[in-house]
């Protein structure tokens, strides 16, 4: 008899949709209901052929299956013998694993960083400088009448964002749904999200900063003494400024189009200032479209434990924070780290080539459920259970609301939760250190 598990939280993107139904038959997932194609792919991936099911150590250039104990011991040895280990990844696993990971970083005097440094790190830096007018996604759903996506294409990265939280949903004060809302999309391409917009603003690449400042000027003065800014005509800028000022509740969602383009954190600085200005006239909020489902969770846990959200260095025994110095890409570009532990992430695919090259030089430990380019370079591989599918845990939605991940099926035999694998490494590291002192 198939069993239907309800109210399942999707462990793929920062929307953390919590209305999924997963049909399980004979311990296998046979159907995923309500999820988008990304969420469905993630659930079905648990059963894919390429799953890492055993611990491996690279011996003479080949992966050899070993006992879990041997793999943990080898991982701990590598980390204890390193002068400047890097612990990176974390955004696709549960908060309980983050906690143990940060304890391990402290024990080792390591640098610990998560994928925020290559996605919304600039947003966090800007928020620390300016502050943030924010809210939960529930408030947006119930109240917002103006929705803006800037440098973000949820149709590719957060497919259910519009239908669950912003446009195509009825809210308490917006019971006519999309009819009561206006959608503005700012992007360099006419994306699928842009095609749905009431107003599409096509900005030139790298022109976001100027456009935001032009909007601030137009909002303050009601005028603009340029015919166009960053490829956007004056009339459209004035129209958007008017819409922003006159709405009841506006929400600006922004993506990597702002954080990765010229200006980076300064773009977010400008966007935060724009929203601050708008709050003189109406209620306006801003939210980064966080990518990995629990990237927000790592930043939250890290802030509780170290005082800082990401890019934390423990080499002096106490935490220090400096993105640009302790961020993973920089530590690799400077060829500074001499060992790395990568948890639930694939930097060889997602870092600039020059940064990935250093991973081929140093001992590398990888905890990942699938074979990835990073796993292919590893010296030690540990097989985890997938959080949110095979093990429960806590994750933070993009609006900082914590949700409980569910266990839907059993993991393959021998696959343990990330938190347990990292804890085993931590215990072994402590033993080795005690022995040598």
């Amino acid at each position, binding site marked *: 008899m198939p069993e239907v598990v309800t109210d399942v939280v999707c462990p793929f993107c920062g929307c953390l949709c919590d209305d999924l139904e997963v049909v399980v038959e004979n311990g296998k997932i046979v159907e995923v209901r309500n999820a988008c194609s990304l969420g469905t792919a993630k659930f079905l991936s648990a059963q894919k052929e390429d799953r890492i099911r055993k611990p491996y150590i690279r011996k003479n250039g080949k992966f050899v299956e070993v006992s879990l104990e041997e793999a943990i011991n080898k991982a701990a040895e590598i980390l204890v013998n390193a002068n400047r280990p890097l612990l990176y990844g974390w955004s696709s696993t549960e908060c309980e694993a983050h906690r143990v990971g940060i304890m391990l970083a402290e024990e080792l005097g390591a640098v610990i960083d998560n994928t925020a440094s290559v996605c919304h790190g600039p947003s966090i830096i800007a928020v620390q400088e300016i502050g943030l007018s924010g809210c939960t996604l529930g408030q947006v759903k119930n109240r917002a009448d103006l929705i803006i996506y800037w440098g973000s294409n949820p149709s590719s990265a957060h497919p259910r964002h519009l239908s669950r939280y912003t446009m195509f949903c009825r809210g308490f004060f917006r019971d006519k749904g999309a009819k009561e809302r206006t959608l503005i999309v700012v992007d360099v391409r006419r994306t699928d999200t842009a095609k749905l917009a009431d107003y599409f603003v096509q900005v030139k690449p790298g022109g976001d900063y100027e456009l935001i400042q032009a909007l601030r000027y137009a909002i303050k003065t009601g005028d603009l003494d340029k015919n166009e800014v960053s490829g956007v005509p004056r009339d459209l800028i004035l129209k958007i400024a008017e819409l922003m000022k006159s709405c009841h509740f506006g929400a600006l969602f922004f993506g990597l189009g702002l954080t990765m383009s010229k200006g980076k954190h300064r773009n977010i600085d400008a966007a935060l200032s724009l929203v601050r200005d708008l709050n003189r006239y109406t209620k306006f909020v801003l939210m980064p479209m966080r990518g990995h489902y629990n990237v927000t969770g790592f930043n939250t846990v890290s802030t509780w434990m170290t005082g800082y959200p990401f890019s934390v260095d423990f080499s002096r025994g106490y935490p220090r924070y400096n993105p640009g110095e302790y961020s993973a890409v920089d530590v690799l570009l400077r060829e500074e780290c001499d060992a790395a532990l990568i948890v639930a992430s694939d930097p060889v695919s997602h870092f600039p080539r020059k940064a990935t090259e250093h991973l*081929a030089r140093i001992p590398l430990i990888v905890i990942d459920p699938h074979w990835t380019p990073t796993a292919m370079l590893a010296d030690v591989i540990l097989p985890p259970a997938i959080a949110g599918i095979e093990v429960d845990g806590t994750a933070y939605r993009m609006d900082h609301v914590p949700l409980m991940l569910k266990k839907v099926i059993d993991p393959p035999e021998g696959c343990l939760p990330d938190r347990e694998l990292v804890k085993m490494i931590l215990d072994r590291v402590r033993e080795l250190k005690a022995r040598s002192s």
Partner: protein
Amino acid sequence: MAKRELKVIIITGRSIEQGIAIEGGKMEMEYPRACGVCYMDPSDMEKLDLIAGDPVLVRTKFGEVVLTAVRSEYAPHEGIVFIPMGPWANKIIDPNTSSIGMPSFKGVEGVVQKLEDLGKRPPTATEIVEEVKKTEGSKYA
């Protein structure tokens, strides 16, 4: 006469195919099919006399990579090409982190070149791993 190469601005980012391929399909053909591609404005393809599926070489100051040209459904964006995030795009983006940890994954200047040899294809993820293993000072050397 069609041009042989075209100056472009490169942006990288997520696509739905990329998001599906990364869930357990990274060492399979699914991954280069999703990410070893270069979405181009139809008018730019015409300038280079390209049809969808032709191989192109994309070059920047930081490297070069063979990709498959695909007609963009998000046109017009003349002079801008989109490459899904992944090890292909990352061979050519700007690694400079502007002292804040974030490389320039979007807005990199480059050149798209038409390839005469139509048999050329993007490297597979395994081939990219092999390239990385050949890094100077690599533990595999």
